[in-house]
């Protein structure tokens, strides 16, 4: 989806401001939203790609106005409702609806250390033939899917060179929509800054973008 989240190359966002001695969370509620999101994801009703896509669906004007953890909260609430973990009425009232018995949380405190230490690898140990080799010239496909994609707009149609094959990974464009993992190779592809941005860019500068097989075509 050509959404506001796909920001690479925009020029009107102002300077970067670094906060000295920045805390991990600026307010207690931010830490709670972070931790609740991790905990709710442990129910495995959705995957990371779906979670990212849900945040991307926030309307652009809201997305730009919201702080980071507000965006997390909005995505979490939407998925939690869509997958039947809570109802909107419950969120509004703060009270559980009568009926279902209390569950046992998917992520209990004793499992946190293992979750943090092992994560959720997105690589897949399946034999998939790579479509490209290191050193090969490629073009990023000019596609504009209305769903989730990790092919940024600024790279589409541009020529690059495969630098390294990182192996086989889940494909976000299908995974985000629960259409299967479609495992395929991911490469580091080098793009000259001038290919991306024209002659004003410095001649030596480059951008390396991680690309799935389905994002590339031979050039």
């Amino acid at each position, binding site marked *: 989806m050509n959404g506001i989240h796909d*920001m*690479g190359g925009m*020029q009107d*966002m*102002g*300077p*970067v401001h*670094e*906060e000295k001695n*920045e805390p991990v969370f600026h307010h*207690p509620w931010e830490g709670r*939203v972070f*931790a*609740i999101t991790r*905990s*709710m994801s442990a129910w495995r009703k959705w995957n990371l790609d779906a979670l990212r896509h849900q945040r991307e669906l926030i309307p652009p004007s809201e997305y730009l*106005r*919201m*702080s*980071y953890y*507000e965006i997390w*909260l*909005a995505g979490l609430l*939407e998925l939690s409702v869509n997958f039947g*973990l*809570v109802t*909107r009425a*419950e969120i509004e009232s*703060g009270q*559980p609806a009568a009926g*279902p018995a*209390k569950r046992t*949380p998917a*992520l209990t*405190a004793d499992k946190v*250390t293992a*979750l*943090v*230490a092992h994560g959720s*690898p*997105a*690589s897949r140990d399946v034999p998939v033939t790579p479509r490209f080799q290191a050193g090969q010239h490629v073009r990023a496909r000019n596609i504009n899917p209305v769903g989730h994609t*990790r092919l*940024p707009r*600024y790279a589409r149609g541009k020529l690059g060179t495969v630098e390294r094959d*990182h192996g086989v*990974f889940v494909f976000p464009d299908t995974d985000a929509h629960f259409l299967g993992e479609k495992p395929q190779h*991911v490469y*580091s592809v080098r793009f000259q*800054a001038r290919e*991306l*941005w024209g002659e004003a860019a*410095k001649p*030596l*500068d*480059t*951008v*390396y973008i*991680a690309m*799935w097989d389905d994002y590339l075509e031979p050039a």
Partner: protein
Amino acid sequence: MQSTRRDFLTTAATAAGAAAASDLSVHAQDHEHTHEHSHQAVPSDLALRVKSLESLLVEKGLVDRAALDALIDTYEHKVGPRNGARVVARAWVDPVYKQRLLSDSDKAIGDLGFGGQQGEHMVVVENTPAVHNMVVCTLCSCYPWPVLGLPPVWYKSAPYRSRSVIDPRGVLREFGLELPDDVEVRVWDSTAELRYLVLPERPVGTESLTEDELAALITRDSMIGVGKVPPPREGGAK
């Protein structure tokens, strides 16, 4: 889709979003002036909403309050850029480790006890006199948690995400780093599940320092690639 968005706004975002002065747009206009206030501009209503949500989820047995506390404690106190600094310092003093770090990053980082969530697939990129690496996630906020902790606000902000790929040198100047044209600025956009750690250059004048002393010099920003590690005389140690 449209009705979904509308519902979601009334449920989650409107009260907070409409009242909150945004970091992003406010900073764009006058970041120096507003910066102290921006994080307090979030209405208390949002804190209340989150508290209410947490209570609801605990009552339904969907989340465990002790697990929430443990997650927050982990990222506030246990996982952060000091981990990455250990990795870099080791690479500076041990050439064999450095080679492994560059070629088999997950394993080498794991050998120091770090790894896991949002660092399952690490790529370490080395700064040299000829190449300066910097890391961004233009699409969201991907960042190597096990070695750097959770990302700072600026890394997740629209200015950094948008400009790093088209104007990396301008962004670096805002961090106080001016690079000559004969240095390649190499930007890594974290579009996949690969997470990047920059191996910064070891500053001159540190030949006699121990690994621990070196680790104390290494800044978070140098491992994102928006700064260099300052030599000890400039007060880099902290």
